[in-house]
């Protein structure tokens, strides 16, 4: 392990980014789903910085109850404060806490990395919301912490929104979708907004993220069994429905639906489809004036031909170098290697390493916070 570390250091040489740490994570028996996602999140720099910030600010409040947030913050602090530049760390406390918290992750079975990411982000949001409420009720008059001060106001300004609190997790990952339904009889458009922390996309063989996003936003007709109840017509009507991105998130997480339930088989199957993901992504199906531009910084890769077994690794871009994280191993890779994780152009292929969760960060003018 030490040898691989020094190899990476040698490979980077004097280009080793200052203050950056590249640490592998130990596997505690099928915890690669967790390791791969943790690496992607660690190299999501705004998220990491805000988490470390939060941790250093709240440490003084006294050792409150241990939760997933404190365990994650603890792990990230541990990595970033290592004396050595490379090495291996055991995310023991975090994994223990995760297993305690959710029985799904308790077994030694192969787990779904997307399910874990989703659970983790929602859990962090819950913890932050609870804390904010506690602070609010503690000191009604005193102003809430600076970090969340914008949240309630903008929330109320929007009116009927039930989710007034915008935590730093939201600020990073949350986007807004709008679901427009147009009644084909009275032409009334009903728009319903919903927030998302990641987008799950249906995939097709030999396609690209851009085409999958286009399908995601394509117009769908609701008819026959699946009619729409129009409030104006007060009856079930044929309608057209489409999803649009109203507010693109700062960090866009795209989950490719590679695990599909096949009714005829009565089980899940992994779709090995080749789905091209660009290093720079333009979102054109948004409602904002300018097209949002994103840059790919992490990919969680599923290795294996089926849904119930296999392995997870991650590719991470840090300071313009691409790194390959496979549990405790960290290697440098060339950018051109990223395209070997697009998938298989034909059904029977020896290549089983497929991009599964993609992390894009907004670049250019859309940069907030």
């Amino acid at each position, binding site marked *: 392990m030490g040898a691989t570390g020094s190899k990476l250091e040698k490979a980077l040489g004097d280009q080793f980014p200052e203050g950056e740490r590249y640490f592998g994570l130990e596997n505690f028996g099928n915890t690669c789903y967790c390791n791969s996602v943790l690496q992607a999140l660690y190299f999501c720099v705004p998220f990491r910085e805000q988490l470390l910030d939060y941790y250093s600010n709240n440490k003084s409040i006294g050792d409150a109850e241990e939760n997933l947030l404190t365990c994650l913050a603890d792990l990230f602090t541990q990595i970033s404060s290592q004396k050595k530049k490379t090495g291996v760390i055991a995310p023991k406390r975090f994994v223990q806490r995760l297993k305690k918290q959710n029985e799904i992750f308790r077994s030694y079975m192969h787990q779904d990395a997307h399910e874990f990411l989703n659970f983790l982000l929602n859990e962090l949001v819950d913890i932050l919301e609870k804390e904010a409420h506690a602070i609010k009720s503690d000191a009604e008059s005193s102003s809430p912490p600076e970090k969340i001060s914008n949240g309630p106001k903008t929330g109320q300004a929007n009116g009927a929104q039930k989710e007034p609190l915008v935590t730093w997790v939201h600020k990073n990952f949350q986007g807004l979708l709008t679901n427009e339904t147009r009644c084909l009889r009275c032409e009334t458009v009903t728009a319903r907004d919903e927030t998302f922390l990641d987008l799950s996309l249906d995939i097709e063989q*030999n396609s*690209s993220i851009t085409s999958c996003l286009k399908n995601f936003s394509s117009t769908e007709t609701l008819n026959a069994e699946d009619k729409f109840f129009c409030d104006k017509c007060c009856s079930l009507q044929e309608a057209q429905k489409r999803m649009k991105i109203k507010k693109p998130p700062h960090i866009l997480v795209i989950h490719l639906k590679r695990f599909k339930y096949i009714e005829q088989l009565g089980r899940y199957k992994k779709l090995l489809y080749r789905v*091209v993901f660009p290093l720079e992504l333009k979102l*054109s199906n948004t409602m904002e004036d300018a097209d949002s531009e994103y840059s790919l910084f992490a990919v969680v890769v599923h290795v294996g031909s089926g849904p119930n077994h296999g392995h997870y690794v991650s590719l991470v871009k840090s300071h313009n170098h691409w790194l390959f994280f496979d549990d405790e191993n960290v290697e440098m890779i060339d950018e051109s290697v990223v395209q070997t994780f697009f998938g298989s152009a034909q059904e029977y292929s020896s290549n089983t390493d497929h991009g599964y969760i993609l992390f894009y960060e907004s670049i250019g003018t859309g940069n907030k916070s």
Partner: protein
Amino acid sequence: MKMMNNGYNSSFNSNSVGLMSNTGATTASSSSSTSTTNANSQSQGLKTYFKTPEGRYKLHYEKTHPPGFLPFSHGKSVSQVTLAQLKDKPAQAGPAPSSSSSASASSGVRYAAAKFLGVGGGNGVRAIGFAGGNGTGKAVNGTSRSGSLVGSNGSHSILNPNYDGKGTYLIFNVGDTIFIGDLNSPDKDPIKSLHFSNSNPICHAFDPEAKDGHDLLIGLNSGDVYSVSLRQQLQDVGKKLVGAQHYNKEGSVNNSRCTSVAWIPKSDGAFVVAHADGNLYVYEKSKDASVDTSFPVIKDQTQFSVAHARSSKSNPIARWHICQGSINNVAFSTDGVYLATVGRDGYLRVFDYSKDQLICGGKSYYGALLCCTWSLNPWHFVDFLLQVSGVAFDSYWSSPTSDDIEENVVYRFGSVGQDTQLLLWDLSMDEIVVPLRRCPPGGSPTFSTGSQSAHWDSITPLGTLQPAPCMRDVPKLSPVVAHRVHTEPLSGLLFTQESILTACREGHVKIWMRPSSESQSSNSEALVGGSSSLAGSRVGSSILK
């Protein structure tokens, strides 16, 4: 071919003689399975023709690497195709078939065997090829062995006299090998393979103007570049390059991947080599390849700069630092005046080559640009975006309304992408260019020079790079034809007088006959177009006029 290659290996290495039967058997089984899966997958929803407004294009021939040859590095090597036309050999004492009796016999047998195996076409070839592995294989072993031995002594001692005449050849790379096929032969298997032991070939270019000497350039993943004579390769029976000039040996000038090579038209043997680190080098084939030049350190990576070699005897003669990140493709206008480059940074740049000057450029909408090509008219230029892997102009297509050509020029061009589809586009200058001119400054991908539009020249000074256009400001063009031609993502596209050639990343090439040409006659004229690699399905285009 494959069988003979096996024979060659085994007779050379005593350890592998024992293996030979094994390899023979396994290859045979694996290849038969490949051929069946290929046959299956090829037939899965893939038609052998496609319809266009001008008629039906029919699948004429297919070319591929020998069965059982599987590139190891999945996805890393992308097949590119180059067409090469050899003219009749100039009157000269050609290699007499009597140079050495045993050798000529061997090459004769070889050729006969190749011919024999070639007959039948399609799967029949494979079956015969592998039956031969047991029976006739022995004879071939013997001959190829002597052939290779002599070949290693002196490359000129055995020559296959069958390649003296004219012919059109297809050059494509798969994994660590370059294959050469005869465009006008129904034989699916290549007639020649060139193996590279140190690094994978990535790009190649053929110089149709070369009067003599070297006409084929090959760029490697290691950064090394070779120039060779195509005819000499065809006439040699070995698997190695013969009579090659080696430039940038072991990356002595630049050790990053060689991404694109191009002969400079009308330059008498000068060529450029683009690298993955954003540098481009100019070489002259007449100069000594072994003397390397050192160039000053690039001070500002973000700035375009040209450095000329101090000594006029050395190679390369100049270095152009073009951009940060990889240069993905380069293309010269047919008159050799302008050089276009596209790269990872998403910019298309157009240079006045002889003046070392950046004229104009623009950023793409979707990000990294992969390929670019010129039409025959140098100022009508199309650049293509991330998800298109190959693009080419069809200079043989003429607009049905060619009578009013002055007012309305229509260009036919094609693109291939990772969605396995071939798209054909008709670009009408009055429909596309005029709306573009109405765009607000800065948001427009148009650029003009000369007297074409003084208005735009006043806004954009020479050498300005335009930012990426906004989606809504760019007129959308829809393809006239979209056809799924292969099962694998595509990587190359070429137009010839009689046909369209499509190639997929894994090294399968299909030749689609144009509707008009009934005859299967030989000799395609010069071709237009280059291609490069990477992602998908959507196409955007912008025109520089």
